[in-house]
């Protein structure tokens, strides 16, 4: 348990990306949230650990309280991974108009563009973390054959809804922003909408499938979400 300033603490289980460890972190976060401890305002599962953010009015030692809480939860047993998260279906149009880096990915992976799309859409994925921007998911479970590094030079503006891959993950851009991931498609749905009852489409632990759609369906969903 390391301090994260004087109002938060962070327990990091792994310094490298490990899907098993990430799942434990998510189950631990769920167990802590279920205890509804007064004074804890945010429980944030990250790629390799969990951060607990406390209310400034909290009277007590933040790090000790966090450590004791984590120990209690681990001892009592964590909820099953299958019981966490929802199943999220993300419609994606992989047409050339949206798949800005698909040709480059195909070349780097020595696959045809159709193969890249097919492999991507066939994957079983899990949201490892949501961060960088509201609603921005880091999704694990990418086919090994599709592993490509981030682009040498980031794009000044990646269009909102872009679905992009790098290293072993997929991300979805909630709004237009600069980015260095390889864009292979676009979803018409908003990853984050502050007016929705559940504003973020993705939450840590959600299981994700990508459903290929046509340009026409993309347009329909864009106009009638």
């Amino acid at each position: 348990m390391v301090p994260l300033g004087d109002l938060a603490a962070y327990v990091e289980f792994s310094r490298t990306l490990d899907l098993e460890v990430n799942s434990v972190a998510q189950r631990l976060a769920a167990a802590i949230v279920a205890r509804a401890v007064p004074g804890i305002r945010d429980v944030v599962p990250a790629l390799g650990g969990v951060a607990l953010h406390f209310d400034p009015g909290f009277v007590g030692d933040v790090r000790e309280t966090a450590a004791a809480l984590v120990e209690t939860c681990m001892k009592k047993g964590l909820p099953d991974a299958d019981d966490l998260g929802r199943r999220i279906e993300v419609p994606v149009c992989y047409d050339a108009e949206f798949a800005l880096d698909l040709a480059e990915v195909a070349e780097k992976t020595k696959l045809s563009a159709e193969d890249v799309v097919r492999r991507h859409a066939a994957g079983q994925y899990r949201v490892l973390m949501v961060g960088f921007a509201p609603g921005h998911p880091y999704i694990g479970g990418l086919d090994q054959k599709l592993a490509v590094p981030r682009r040498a030079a980031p794009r000044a503006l990646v269009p909102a809804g872009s679905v992009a891959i790098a290293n072993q993950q997929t991300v979805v851009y909630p709004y237009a922003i600069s980015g260095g991931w390889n864009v292979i498609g676009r979803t018409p749905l908003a990853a984050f909408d502050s007016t929705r009852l559940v504003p973020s489409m993705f939450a840590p632990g959600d299981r994700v499938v990508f459903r290929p759609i046509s340009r026409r369906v993309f347009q329909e969903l864009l106009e009638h979400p």
Partner: protein
Amino acid sequence: MSIRILRPGLLTTVQDFGRHGHQHVGLCPGGAMDVVSLTLANALVGNPPGAAALEITVIGPELRFEHDTLVALCGAEFKGGFPHNRPMLVRAGETLPVGRATRGARAYLAVASGLAIEPVLGSCSTYLPGRFGGFEGRALRHGDVLAPNEDVSRERFAALKRKNGASVRWSAPPLTLPDREPIVVHAIEGQHHGLFDSAAQRAFYDTVWRVSPESNRMGFRLGGPPLSREAGEEILSGPTCLGSVQVPPSGVPIALMADHQTTGGYPRIAEIAAADVPRVAQLA
């Protein structure tokens, strides 16, 4: 009861204490950069500490009040002639320019009963990167109209003691403005402190850092010697907090401020103590 924006100033936004409980989906709390001055301004007009107010930055707005309105301005000092750190009853029809900051960078203009703003995700704060919250998710512009929640200004002003015309004879002290610079800020060793070589670690604590003009509500860039890290693997993206000091490969430290990203892949050498963030917020 309206308050009309004649000139918006450099960056004037509606802020309160922010929206909590959403960091796990990437939304930071946001809210006032200097929560102490916001609290004080609200106290001076009889509001709960986190009532929605205007955060004013460096060049203040010019406002016309169509009704008698009890207001208070706390934080940075501005030269428009607006009394600071005390309640003041602005009369119906009066126009007040806040002016340019002469000391500090941000001030809060609170109105009695708080600004009437529809909350988004539990807060009236403006989240500029996401364009939601506050007044239409953006900085105020010429022609915008705001209003307080209730018409309590005259009654609250009447209850004040030791009045002096439209204001009072007393004032609150400016709690977050520096008496002199450099200001001393407390820091807690960060998770990745050990990844920096000993010269960099020493430099972090010995340097008088200058907050660069390329700073904003998301983060303050600190000018000084580059902090070098022992070459190693990229660190795994992890959580951040208000006041986290990240050091990207360039070696230029960035102190995360109110609208910070909730996770980051840059090493964190230290975190600024929460109680000192309001004072840092007055530097740029």
